[in-house]
């Protein structure tokens, strides 16, 4: 057991997996010698050699395509897209190839691979270093979509994603790489070391994909969220004295609907929170599912707290970010109705 921030935990997951499985190869822009702009792949080239951890040309399409070929060969690509905002040039290879390969070949060719990419705002990255495009992947049958919220989960989920026989898009909430975030951007940053989930077991452990985690039990309402917003939501719940049950989904596809349903049946109220833009965000799917399944248990409409339907504006980062005020208002609304 060691105390780690999320970057260290992810790095550790790479090492544990690569030591156990020679077929894992890591590549991405700046991911080789330098170890990635966020340093998640640091030291891998040194330990595993240049042919297992290397720099890639600046071609997200080429990176995914190469990974497809490697997976077809029998390797397990564990690749990095430098920012989620830059995944779109690889979108065709992901949607048309990675996602559909098992299906279109009736299981003859499979695409076990993990596509890691930092996502989300809160670091003054402007429109092209802040996006949360997860819902664009949840619509694509054949992909799994995973988002950790702590160092402990980051390692356990990444190891599960690596072991998974299907392709996993692994979104890393970059705002909380170095410490959890309560949404109050004007307060000093707390490091992970002060958070219990920075205790990361040594060696291998896996958190099964498709299992949500109830991070706070409560009776008044069910709050569904993931990534950075888990911490922002928890803080808001405490600050507003609402006895919410907060569920960290951890994986959007497959989704742990059982845990969700059980909670909503209990609380009768539901709030969905994400940073991505509202329209056709993953929150829409969650709302649809909850009202389809728990309609007669609902005492008030399921509400959404989200980013706005605009690009992420540099200077207005904190007016865009769904922070404490937006949460407070939504909590009040869900409870009031």
């Amino acid at each position: 057991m060691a105390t780690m921030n999320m970057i260290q935990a992810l790095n550790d997951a790479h090492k544990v997996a690569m030591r156990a499985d020679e077929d894992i190869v890591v590549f991405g822009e700046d991911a080789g010698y330098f170890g990635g702009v966020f340093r998640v792949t640091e030291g891998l080239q040194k330990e595993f050699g240049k042919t297992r951890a290397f720099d890639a040309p600046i071609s997200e399409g080429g990176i995914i395509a190469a990974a497809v070929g490697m997976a077809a060969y029998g390797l397990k690509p564990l690749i990095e897209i430098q920012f989620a905002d830059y995944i779109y040039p690889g979108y065709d290879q992901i949607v048309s190839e990675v996602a559909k390969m098992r299906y279109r070949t009736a299981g003859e060719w499979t695409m076990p691979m993990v596509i890691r990419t930092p996502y989300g705002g809160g670091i003054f990255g402007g429109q092209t270093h802040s996006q949360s495009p997860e819902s664009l992947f949840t619509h694509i049958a054949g992909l799994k979509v995973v988002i950790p919220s702590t160092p402990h989960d980051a390692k356990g989920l990444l190891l599960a994603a690596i072991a998974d026989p299907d392709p996993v898009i692994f979104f890393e909430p970059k705002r909380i790489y170095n410490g959890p975030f309560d949404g109050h951007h004007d307060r000093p940053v707390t490091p992970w070391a002060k958070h219990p989930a920075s205790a990361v077991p040594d060696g291998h452990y896996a958190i099964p994909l498709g299992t949500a985690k109830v991070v706070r039990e409560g009776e008044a309402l069910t709050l569904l969220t993931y990534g950075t917003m888990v911490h922002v939501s928890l803080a808001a719940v405490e600050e507003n004295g609402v006895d919410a049950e907060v569920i960290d989904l951890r994986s959007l596809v497959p989704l742990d609907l059982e845990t969700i349903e059980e909670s909503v049946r209990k609380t009768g109220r539901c709030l969905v929170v994400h940073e991505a833009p509202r329209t056709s965000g993953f929150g829409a799917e969650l709302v649809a599912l909850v009202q389809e399944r728990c309609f007669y248990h609902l005492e008030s409409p399921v509400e959404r707290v989200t980013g706005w339907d605009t690009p992420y504006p540099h200077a207005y980062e904190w007016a865009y970010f769904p922070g404490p005020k937006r949460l407070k208002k939504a909590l009040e609304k869900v409870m009031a109705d």
Partner: protein
Amino acid sequence: MSDKDPEATRANRPVLELHVPEPRYRPGDTPDFSNLVIPAAGSAPRPDPSAAAARTHPLATDLVRVLGDDDQAHGPWDPKVDPDILRKMLKDMVTVRVFDDRMYRAQRQGKTSFYMKCTGEEAVAIAAAAALDRDDMHFPSYRQQGLLIARGYPLTTMMCQIYSNAGDPLKGRQLPIMYSDKAHGFFSISGNLGTQFPQAVGWAMAAAIKGDHRIAMGWIGDGATAEGDFHSAMTFAAVYNVPVILAVVNNQWAISSFSGIAGAERATFAQRAVGYGIASLRVDGNDALAVYAAIKWASERARANDGPTMIEFFTYRAEGHSTSDDPTGYRPASEAKAWPLGDPVERLKAHLIALGEWDEVRHSALAAQSDVEVRAAQKVAEKLGILPQQGKDNIESMFEDVYAEVPWHIAEQRAAALAEAKDK
């Protein structure tokens, strides 16, 4: 900020113009290819397969040809292939053509939704199959059915795929002709043009990472070279010196667009490789011997870690793009006949006859045999069903293989679909 007065300069300037490429001939025109420069068979030099890429670059604007007008093999690229292999190639090419004709007809008879022929381009895939090892991996486009046929994949299975029937290994999920077979080194064909090209490079990267001996060959059409994936393939192949052969089948048409719309007016497709420092060959795609020799050359290069090769096979799409296309809407009906590089089947046949290794009687027998084989395969395949009968049974199979295991949401949908199917 110019050093001359801009207004004064401007007055003397021509107005800018957009050039929109046009093929030489449109419907109604009489095609005449007499001024097409066709280098003589045997005239192209053959660098050593380990030569620096730059040594090959003059070949990117040349044309490697082996079979001459005299039906003999000429020059340094003559692969000196055993006549048994040539006969096998001829047989395979004839079988492909018969297969194409039967399946085209099957589509017209309403037995399936779609078909694509490779008429006039048979030499390319057949010679590739002959030149590479059985365990090298192909990442084909939809016009390399010849690879499967040459590698002995059952014709019946191909047809079952085309009919999406009970014998279809792809379980009715793919459009006809989107074959896939790992055991025959034939990667799943994608409907999305160009995607396979960089995937071939990735596969070969993996082979290199693992210290394998097997190499990969990627295939793409002239039109599809315009996709970004083409550039990914070239870039990755160059950067990592990948043991891959990258083939552009330039059949001069991309549905209704001629190759000028893909850039052929200004450079050959083989020349693209020059820009990446990749070895490059431009080859008469209707000359089975030249195709064979070029691929052998590139495979030797790749296997010796001397790097990738791009090969442009210059050929001509003799028929419509697919069963959905009528080419008389955009090119003269007589163009295919006028195309000067001939029919690859006829050329190989004539060569074997010139060698004294073949004759018309044997050829008729071979053609008849291919016809019998294809018809027999078709009979078996059709017993397993044709497309209009499909899609009713085994509904649950629709929901398999989206993931390794069926997740709850797809299981629910499967249950709904099964209920729906039962509900009359």
